[in-house]
C-alpha cells in the first residue's frame, strides 16, 4: 500500500485545569481522504483539531506533517503550512462586510500603496458563494446582519479561499439545511479529487456515512478507534462513542387521536415584516409541537424573533389564549409566557462571564428568590437536575461556560429556558451541535412539556428530527408559508419540494 499520510499526531495529551481533554491520542490522516472525527460532546474533537491548527499547544506528543516532525505554534503558521480551519464557534468580525471577512489577513491589494481592492474582493466573494454553495449572500452586507447559517457559509467560503492541502471542518453543517449541506458535500468531494485532505466533524452521523472514507472515534479524551467507513455502521459508531448501547427511541403520539383538549394557546394572524416574512398565519394548541422547516433565509428565525418580542412586525396579530398581545421587548413576551431558545447561543443566549449555574438560572431567578435574595440551595438543586438530565459535561455547577465544548454550551443554552417551563416554547435549531444521546434527551423533554399542555414551536433544518418530533409541520419558503402537513402525511420529499 502506498498511502501517503498528510500528517500524524502521535500520543497527544492535553490537560485543562480539572479536565484531561486528550489522553494519549494518535490521529493520522491520509492524503486526499475525507476523515471523520466523531465523539460525544466534550470528547475532545475540537481540542484535537485546535492543536493541529496552532491554537493550543499539546502537553505531550508529536506532530509529523508531510514526513517531518514540526511544532505548530500559531494559527498563522498552520495557514502557511497549508492547513485551514473552519472553527465550530463562528469567528467573523461582526462590524466588517462579508467580503472583508472573507479576505481578512489575506487582502487583495492594489498598487504599492496597498489599499484594498474592494471590487475584486466583492466579485470574488460573490463567485465563491454562488459557485460553491449556491447561495446568494451579498458580500457588501455588514456581517452582523447575517443569520447563523449564513455566517457559517461565509466561514466555509473563507476557509476555501486559501490554498490549502488540509481543510479542517468542525461542524460546518450544524446550522445548514439539507440543500446547502449537499452542496458542501459536492465541494468536499471536489477537494478530495484534487488530493486535498479533509477532516470532518459532525454530530449528524448520517453525513459521516455519506461523505467520509475513514472515521476516528473519541470518547472522554481517549482514542477508541480508527476504521474505514465500510467497516462501520450507525449503531456501532454510536456504541463506540457512548460506550454502551443507547436507547434512541422516541415514541410518537398522535395528537389528533389522543383526547387532548383543543385549547388554542397561540394564534398568529397575517403577520408581516417587510423584506423578512409575509402574511404568516397559524395556530398552536396546548400540547402540540409545531415544526418549522425551510431553507436558510426562508425567514424562520425572523418570524420567531417577532413572536418573542425581539423584532417589531409591520402588520398582523399575535393572540395568546384569546387575547391580542403587543410585545415591545422580550420582557413582554416572557410575561405572556412565550420564550425562545436562540439559534445564536454565543451572542444572544449565553453569558461567557458566567458559570453553568448562573447561566441556567438567569431567567429563573424570580422563582428562586425572595425580596431579591437568591436562595443558593434551590439554585443548586434545579441546576443539578438539568445538568444530569441533559448530561452536561463536565457535570459541575461552577464550570465557566467559556471553557466548555460547543455542544455542552448548547445544552446550557437550552436548559436555561427549559427550566422556566414556559407556556409556549420556541426552539430555534435547539440541537445544533449536540450529540445523539443529548438530542434524544431534548426530544424527550419537549415531549414531556407538550404532555403537560405546553405548546412548542420547533424550528430545525434537519428534516429527520422535524419529522420525528412535530405533530404538525409548516414549511416556509422566501418569507411565506408554503405549506402545512400533519405528521402522518409528511415526508422528506414533500417538505423539500415546498421548501426549495
Amino acid at each position: 500500500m502506498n498511502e501517503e499520510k498528510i500528517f500524524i499526531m502521535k500520543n497527544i495529551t492535553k490537560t485543562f485545569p480539572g479536565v484531561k481533554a486528550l489522553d494519549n491520542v494518535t490521529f493520522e490522516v491520509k492524503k486526499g481522504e475525507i476523515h471523520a472525527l466523531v465523539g460525544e460532546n466534550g470528547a475532545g474533537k475540537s481540542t484535537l483539531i485546535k492543536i493541529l491548527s496552532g491554537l493550543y499547544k499539546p502537553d505531550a506528543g508529536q506532530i509529523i506533517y508531510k514526513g517531518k516532525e514540526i511544532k505548530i505554534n500559531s494559527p498563522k503558521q498552520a495557514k502557511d503550512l497549508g492547513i485551514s480551519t473552519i472553527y465550530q464557534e463562528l469567528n467573523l468580525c461582526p462590524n466588517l462586510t462579508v467580503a472583508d471577512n472573507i479576505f481578512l489577513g489575506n487582502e487583495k491589494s492594489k498598487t504599492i500603496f496597498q489599499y484594498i481592492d474592494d471590487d475584486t474582493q466583492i466579485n470574488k466573494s460573490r463567485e465563491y458563494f454562488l459557485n460553491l454553495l449556491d447561495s446568494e449572500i451579498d458580500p457588501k452586507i455588514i456581517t452582523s446582519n447575517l443569520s447563523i447559517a449564513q455566517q457559517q457559509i461565509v466561514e466555509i467560503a473563507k476557509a476555501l479561499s486559501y490554498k490549502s492541502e488540509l481543510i479542517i471542518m468542525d461542524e460546518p453543517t450544524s446550522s445548514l439545511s439539507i440543500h446547502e449541506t449537499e452542496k458542501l458535500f459536492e465541494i468536499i468531494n471536489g477537494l478530495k479529487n484534487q488530493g486535498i485532505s479533509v477532516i470532518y466533524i459532525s454530530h449528524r452521523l448520517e453525513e459521516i456515512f455519506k461523505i467520509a472514507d475513514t472515521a476516528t472515534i473519541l470518547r472522554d479524551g481517549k482514542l477508541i478507534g480508527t476504521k474505514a467507513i465500510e467497516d462501520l455502521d450507525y449503531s456501532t459508531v454510536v456504541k463506540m462513542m457512548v460506550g454502551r448501547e443507547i436507547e434512541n427511541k422516541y415514541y410518537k403520539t398522535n395528537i389528533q387521536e389522543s383526547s387532548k383538549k383543543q385549547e388554542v394557546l397561540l394564534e398568529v394572524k397575517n403577520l408581516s415584516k417587510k423584506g423578512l416574512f409575509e402574511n404568516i398565519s397559524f395556530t398552536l394548541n396546548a400540547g402540540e409541537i409545531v415544526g418549522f422547516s425551510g431553507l436558510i433565509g426562508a425567514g424562520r428565525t425572523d418570524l420567531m424573533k417577532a413572536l418573542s418580542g425581539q423584532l417589531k412586525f409591520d402588520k398582523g396579530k399575535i393572540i395568546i389564549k384569546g387575547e391580542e398581545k403587543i410585545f415591545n421587548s422580550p420582557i413582554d413576551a416572557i410575561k405572556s409566557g412565550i420564550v425562545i431558545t436562540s439559534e445564536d447561543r454565543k451572542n444572544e443566549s449565553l453569558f461567557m462571564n458566567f458559570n453553568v449555574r448562573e447561566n441556567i438560572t438567569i431567567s429563573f431567578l424570580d422563582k428562586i428568590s425572595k425580596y431579591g435574595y437568591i436562595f443558593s440551595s434551590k439554585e443548586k438543586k434545579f441546576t443539578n437536575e438539568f445538568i444530569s438530565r441533559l448530561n452536561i459535561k463536565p457535570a459541575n455547577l461552577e464550570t465557566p461556560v467559556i471553557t466548555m465544548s460547543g455542544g455542552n454550551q448548547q445544552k446550557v443554552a437550552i436548559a436555561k429556558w427549559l427550566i422556566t417551563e414556559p407556556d409556549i416554547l420556541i426552539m430555534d435549531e435547539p440541537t445544533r451541535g449536540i450529540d445523539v444521546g443529548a438530542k434524544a434527551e431534548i426530544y424527550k423533554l419537549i415531549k414531556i412539556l407538550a404532555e403537560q399542555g405546553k405548546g412548542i414551536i420547533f424550528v430545525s433544518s434537519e428534516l429527520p428530527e422535524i419529522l420525528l418530533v412535530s405533530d404538525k409541520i409548516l414549511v416556509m419558503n422566501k418569507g411565506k408559508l408554503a405549506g402545512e402537513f400533519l405528521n402522518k402525511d409528511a415526508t422528506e420529499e414533500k417538505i423539500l419540494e415546498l421548501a426549495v
Partner: protein
Amino acid sequence: MALKENLANSKTKKKFGLFSGIRIRDMGVLFALIILIIFFAILSHGRFFTISNFLTVSRQVSLTIIVGVGMTFIMITGNIDLAVGSYLALSGVLVAAILYYGVPWYLAVIIIMIFMGLIGALVGTVVAKQKLNSLIVTLAMLGIASGAALAYTGGKPIFIKNQAFISIGNGYFGPIPIPVVIAFFILIIGQFVLRKTKFGRYAYAVGGNMEAAITSGINVDRIIIYAFAITGMLSGLSGSIMAGRLFSGNPTVGQDFNLDVIAAVVIGGTSLAGGVGNMWGLLIGAFLVGIIGNGLTILGVPYFYQIIAKGLIIYIAILIDRQTRQAGLGKSRI
C-alpha cells in the same frame, strides 16, 4: 448515578459564598500590595508600619472604598462614571448649606444621599434610555456638577458648625475612625448584593452580554439606572463625610478622587469591558492606591512626584494582574 456525582461536586466546591469573588487573579495585586508594604516598612525606619499609620491610611481610603462600591457596580454593567469627584464637591457644599439652616445632621445626610441618588439616576437614565456612552455623559456631568458647586459658593468653602456632623468625618468608634466603620459595612453590603441578589447577578449579565441579557428578559435599563443611582447615593455619603472632616463644604475637593476610585476598582480586577469584578478586589486596590500616597509622604517625597509614582505603580499593578489572569484562563479560546 450522575446526579450523585453532581451533588458531591457541588458540596466539595463551595464557591457560592460571599467570598466567592476571591480568585487567583486577585493574588497578583495582593502580592504587589504586600511588597509595597514591606518596601515602605524598611525605608521608613518604622514610621510606616504602625497601627496608628494603618488607621490613617484606612481613613484615607475609606472614601475611595465607599464610592468604589458604587463604581464597581457601574463598571460591572460595562459603564463608567467620571463625575464622582465632582459629586464629592457638590454634595459637600450642599450638605453644608442645609446644615446652615439648622437641619439635624442625620436628616442632612439622608437628604443629600437621596438628592445625589436622584442625580445618579438621571445620569443612568440618560445613559440607558438614550443609549449614550457613559464616558461622555458623565464627563458632561463632571462639568455640570463641579461648575454648580463653584457657582453656588463663589469658589469659597461653606463652614460647618454642627458638631455631631463633624464627628462623622473625625470621630472614632473605639479606636477605629468612623469613616472606616462605615466603609467596612458598605463594602460588605456591596459584596452581598453583588453575589447574593438578583440585582447583582443581573449587573454581571448586562455587562457580560447585553444582547443575551435583553433576550433573557432582564430589564437592562433599570439595572444601569440603579447602578448609577447607588453610586450617586454613596457619593453623597462620601461627600458628607469629607465635609465633616474638613469642617466645611469645599467646592474644590475631589480633584484626584476620580483617579483614585477608578484606579482602585480597576486594580482590583474589575474589567473596564464589564461583566467581571468584585468588592474584595476593590478593597485591595483602594489600599494599594492609598498606601502609595501615604508611604511616599512619610518618606518625604514631594506631592508632584507622588502623582507620577502613583501612575507608574498603577501601570505595574495592572500588568501583574493581567499576567495572573492569563495564567488562570485560556486566553485563546475560540
